[in-house]
């Protein structure tokens, strides 16, 4: 009994880690006033780059770092379109999603002999008690992926920056009233660029924590909706780092349920079960979207000098 509870917790945390990174990216970007629905695409490219760099170098950590960078590059495109050229942020985000999944598939075919699946990485990211080996049954039950720990640290760090430092104050002001920030001599454009790129880096890392920790390779379905679930978590978590974290645990639990209820001689068909995280996302959005308070200026391009 204890073991199965621990198993449930471990799986929940494991599946929530990628969501947490991505949702944090969403929080940062939206707080600064730029809607980023391209998270899914940034996760895809991160998942691919992470897995393939991990395969070629044999080092999962360099895969994770490169994944972050690739997400950041894709986010830069979004920033150029939506901050500099003041394009519609939803349209730009959709384009990023198409580019992200398309490009990762294309590159995969290019580098892996026409396969849309990369070869498995020789070594996944370590587990937190990995150094103890696999001798103890109990340790195995609570042996979490390092990404779980990293994502929690990222949440705490983001919370600290957002609510304790001057940069956080400015970012939060940007999403509410960018003209106010501009009028006190802080560059709106630069700050938004930084936030959007940061959100891309986090989303990229989120993608790679699927392909470097949960599974060990990139597959076309490795990233299937996690980016959008993360966006739902941003809303459910009321645009707060801690809130988004808790929301991600909830959605992670939904994904864990699929694993736990599936298999064995269960009566529920797996296809129905696999819908669970998405159905729960829709239900949560229906219940909470109207009530939560989004940053006022999110999604609106800032035009200097316009009123």
């Amino acid at each position, binding site marked *: 009994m204890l073991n199965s509870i621990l198993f449930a917790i471990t799986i929940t945390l494991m599946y929530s880690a990628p969501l947490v990174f991505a949702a944090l990216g969403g929080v940062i970007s939206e707080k600064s006033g730029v809607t980023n629905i391209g998270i899914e695409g940034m996760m895809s490219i991160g998942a691919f780059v992470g897995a393939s760099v991990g395969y070629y170098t044999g080092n999962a950590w360099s895969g994770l770092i490169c994944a972050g960078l690739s997400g950041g590059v894709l986010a830069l495109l979004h920033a150029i379109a939506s901050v500099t050229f003041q394009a519609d942020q939803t349209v730009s985000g959709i384009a990023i999603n198409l580019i992200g999944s398309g490009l990762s598939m294309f590159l995969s075919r290019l580098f892996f002999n026409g396969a849309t699946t990369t070869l498995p990485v020789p070594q996944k990211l370590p587990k937190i008690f990995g150094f103890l080996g696999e001798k103890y049954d109990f340790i195995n039950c609570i042996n979490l992926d390092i990404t779980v720990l990293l994502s929690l640290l990222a949440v705490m760090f983001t919370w600290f920056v957002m609510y304790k*430092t001057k940069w956080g104050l400015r970012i939060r002001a940007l999403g509410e*009233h960018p003209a106010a920030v501009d009028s006190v001599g802080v560059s709106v454009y630069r700050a938004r660029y930084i936030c959007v790129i940061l959100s891309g880096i986090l989303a990229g890392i989120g993608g790679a924590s699927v392909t470097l920790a949960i599974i060990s390779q990139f597959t076309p379905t490795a990233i299937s909706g996690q980016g959008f679930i993360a966006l739902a978590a941003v809303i459910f978590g009321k645009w707060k780092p801690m809130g988004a974290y808790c929301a991600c645990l909830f959605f992670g639990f939904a994904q864990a349920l699929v694993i736990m209820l599936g298999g064995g001689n269960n009566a529920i068909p797996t296809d129905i079960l696999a819908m669970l995280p998405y159905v729960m996302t829709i239900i949560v959005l229906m219940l909470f979207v109207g009530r939560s308070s989004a940053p006022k200026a999110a999604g609106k391009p800032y035009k200097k000098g316009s009123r």
Partner: protein
Amino acid sequence: MVEISKKYAVQMRGITKSFGTFKVLDDVELDVKKGTIHAILGENGAGKSTLMNILYGLYSSDSGEIYLNGKLQFLKNTAVAIKSGIGMVHQHFMLVDKFTVIQNIVLGNETTGRFGIIKTRESREKVKEIIDRYGLNVDLNRKVRDLSVGQQQRVEILKALYRGADLLILDEPTAVLTPMEIEDLIRIMGSLVADGKTIIIITHKLKEIKKSAQECTIIRRGKFIDRVKVEDETEKTLAKKMVGREIKLKVDKTPFNPGEEVFSIKNLHVRCCRGIETVKGLSLSIRRGEILGLAGIEGNGQKELIEALLCARHVDSGEIRINGEEIQNTSPGNVLKCGVSAIHADRHKYGIVLDFSVAENAILEKYRDKPYCERGFLNYKERDKFTNKLISEYDIRPKDCKDLLIRELSGGNQQKLVIGREIANEPELLIAVQPTRGLDVGAIEYVHKTLINLRDKNKAILLISLELDEIMDLSDTIAVMYDGAINGVFKSGEADENDIGFLMAGGQENEQCC
């Protein structure tokens, strides 16, 4: 032209600025003496705000020079302007309303310890010192959204002073204030100037210039017209210089000759969108040939009242009757049919569709009716005929604007179209909510004349305005709204500005006004 000298806080020479092909400023000069209040007077779109935005580094001018304290300066952005001791209070406040007052004040200029952690203690002490020095009382820990407009303005002034501003630019500072708050502001400006600060106010209100400023620069259509000592001028001469022609500041009215009652509200209760009751048992009646002015500070239930009158909001109890017929809780279409037309305060949000042409906007309420629509097809000929009629009758400019997007018209001309359209409905009751908001003296004169004409045609008018002067000038009867109910009714001329201001702030009629 004045010599460049240290005696002047700001001197601007030959400032020219174009947006696209449109020259907003053309060779404008400005001289502001240190330690004075200097007004910049001009109609809407004259370029006052643009000039000040150039001074504050928000825009760069195409040509021209700026001297601060006799020294040539290049203010390439706001950060440089702030460093040079310039502070600006914008017409639309630059405050984050979810933040506390102190957070808003320090934003962009935070005192921090290690790792960029914000330390508020030092900033708090600095701000408190400024508050005590100039009597700018405001609670630093409250959220900005919970403050009154007057208090928010103080936060803006504090923000500028906290950054060490010696020169303060106030853009239309009195547009949103109550009479008492205006008095307060003028007092605060006085204490700032006494302390050696210099203030520039942008305004088109003549009264406040007379009350507060020493000198005044007048700009008309982007050109420098004159720099005058305020004490040598009257409101009339200032208005003439601003508009370029004689202006009647007071409207001529025929004597009040009311007919029978057309419109009445009895014991009306309405809740706002958060479910709180904001109209609490309001009663009112208007007769034919009467302008009833409803005075009141924003947020005392006016918004909900107007929405309830137009059936855009559910009425909990009470009745609204037009010509004896109850109209509450029907539909906006029914209200229109019963002969109630409205001019909304926010014409961009409710009155017109900015990206429709002038002609399309002209039939916005009638597009379904004959002759503008026949069997589901629009009749462009009739539409254009009607539009051209409005254009010539109400002097909407430019003359051939019927196919232009209404966005391209000036605010005054947009408002003329709205008013013309509503009056063409031949309403029994016209509800005019701040009909002159954002308009300049010339356009205001026109709107006022039109309203008076309508009244003389024996129609009823409900005028809701935050501008006390407007209410006092136009109304035959003045009702004061406070906290969702009527707090006093006067005949025109029975009460002065102080009495009404007192009631607007919630005072009781039988109390002594101190």
